[in-house]
């Protein structure tokens, strides 16, 4: 099985580790890879995690990707948008998101590219990023690690706060883990600088440096560990039986 492990599967396995020490909180994986990863975390390292069906209900087992018979979901609780806000203000949540820009302070942007008053590209708006970043842990998945995403200086519109304002969050602000198509990172370097934890197969430190708009530390240049055979079975047969994950990198 191990000879055909895809990059998407490596990213899912690595991203799932973000939630392993969280205990009984709400795990929110926004987007394809983060969502499968949150499900994998629940089925492996942290069965106590709470997850939604992507709409309004908390369900006992992670919802698989693609079409399913949702009437078979074991609903165990309720999580309307209002409830999500209340939950997150209390800090009992860990989200994994994909910002359009990220900077050396861990600040994120999903609002606009370019000048705010005359945007080059209008994106979504800040959504819940200000509240998420100041109230609970967050992790990040980036499918296209480049200087366009990991920007020099600061992001164009700070939507999620960063380490330079950590004291304003009563010490809560944290980017737990950053998984990209090139490697795995965290912000536990000196002065919360972003640091490389491992490189995916066939990626060099130079590749990472050349595609990152700010200075990073190299904590380790080892090769990212591969998903276990148990994880591969869960990803392939339980969480994403239709293989939708493979669309993310065109695998």
């Amino acid at each position: 099985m191990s000879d055909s492990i895809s990059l998407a599967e490596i990213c899912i396995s690595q991203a799932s580790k973000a939630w392993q020490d969280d205990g009984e909180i709400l795990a929110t994986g926004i987007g394809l890879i983060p969502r499968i990863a949150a499900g994998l975390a629940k089925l492996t390292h942290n069965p106590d995690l709470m997850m939604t069906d992507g709409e309004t209900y908390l369900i006992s087992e992670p919802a698989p990707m693609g079409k399913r018979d949702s009437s078979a979901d074991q609903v165990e609780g309720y999580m309307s948008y209002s409830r999500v806000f209340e939950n997150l203000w209390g800090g009992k949540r860990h989200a994994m998101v994909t910002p359009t820009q990220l900077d050396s302070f861990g600040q994120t942007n999903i609002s606009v590219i370019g000048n705010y008053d005359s945007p080059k590209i209008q994106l979504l708006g800040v959504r819940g990023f200000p509240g998420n970043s100041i109230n609970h842990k967050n992790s990040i998945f980036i499918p296209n690690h480049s200087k366009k995403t990991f920007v020099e200086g600061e992001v164009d519109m700070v939507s999620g706060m960063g380490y330079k304002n950590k004291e304003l969050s009563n010490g809560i602000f944290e980017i737990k883990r950053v998984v990209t198509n090139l490697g795995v990172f965290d912000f536990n370097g000196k002065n919360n600088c972003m640091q490389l934890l491992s490189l995916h197969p066939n990626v060099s430190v130079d590749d990472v440096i050349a595609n990152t708009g700010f200075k990073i530390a190299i904590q380790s240049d080892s090769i990212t560990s591969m998903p276990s055979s148990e994880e591969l079975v869960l990803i392939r047969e339980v969480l994403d039986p239709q293989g939708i994950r493979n669309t993310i990198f065109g695998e």
Partner: protein
Amino acid sequence: MNKVLTHKDVLDHLQSNTIIGIGGWGARRKPMSLVREICQSDIKDLTVVSYGGPDVGLLCAHKKIKKLIFGFVSLDVIPLEAHFRKARQNKEIEVMELDEGMLQWGLRSAAMNLPFLPTRVGFGTDVLTHNPELKFVTSPYKDKESFIAMPAIKLDVALLHVNKSDEKGNTQIIGPDPFFDDLFARAAEKTFVSSEELLSTEELGGKDGAIFNRFERSLVTGVVHSPCGAHPTSCSPSYGFDTKHLKEYSDSAKSFNDYADKYMNKTHQDYIESVGGTEEITKIPLPQF
């Protein structure tokens, strides 16, 4: 007591240069038939407050918005709202961009008749940079912590779409998530609801139905019977969002005339026929994620 109005009647209660809140969330349960009615009127220069979807985009396409108070604008299946995007990139609208929770706080503050509610949300972000009118408040208790004083967002009018209503304005939202419609109603001077079904009070189902009554009838000024009135957005549990139509709508940002010819300047009934009729719309499955 009879609060039943036509779509056109609602226009008599709306004015240019006022603040209108629109319920729903993204591409979910938006009062689109009322929004289309505004688009077809000479009302303009609105300040719109919304968890935005095609309501915001369609109003942008008709140049009805002076200022938008928002946290996001998205069509869900199509993440970026092309008409909103165009209006913003062409500098056609002013914005007050807020965290989703700050927007809720502003509505809740208005709903509670308070001038503001305190929050940490927004600190360390450019929400503060771009909204210099936001002020701060210090806790009078021994923590002495400083907060953003999120000001009340008072609405002149709220527009909501619900599943059921009687003619007195006893409404029910049957879909599992009422979003923040109750706060929009409480924050507004007047609230107008469009409703999938217009029923007798008895038909609302007594105690079993009343748990779906998310805000009381005294908040409701008028009720419009509007079957499939949320189209092309979803109205759980009756129908999902019309992905094909949303795509056509989104693509029309390049050139709006064809879309307008096909779907605008129609009565609600004619609009519904133009998109396939209620029978077809109610076959659209609910979205699944």
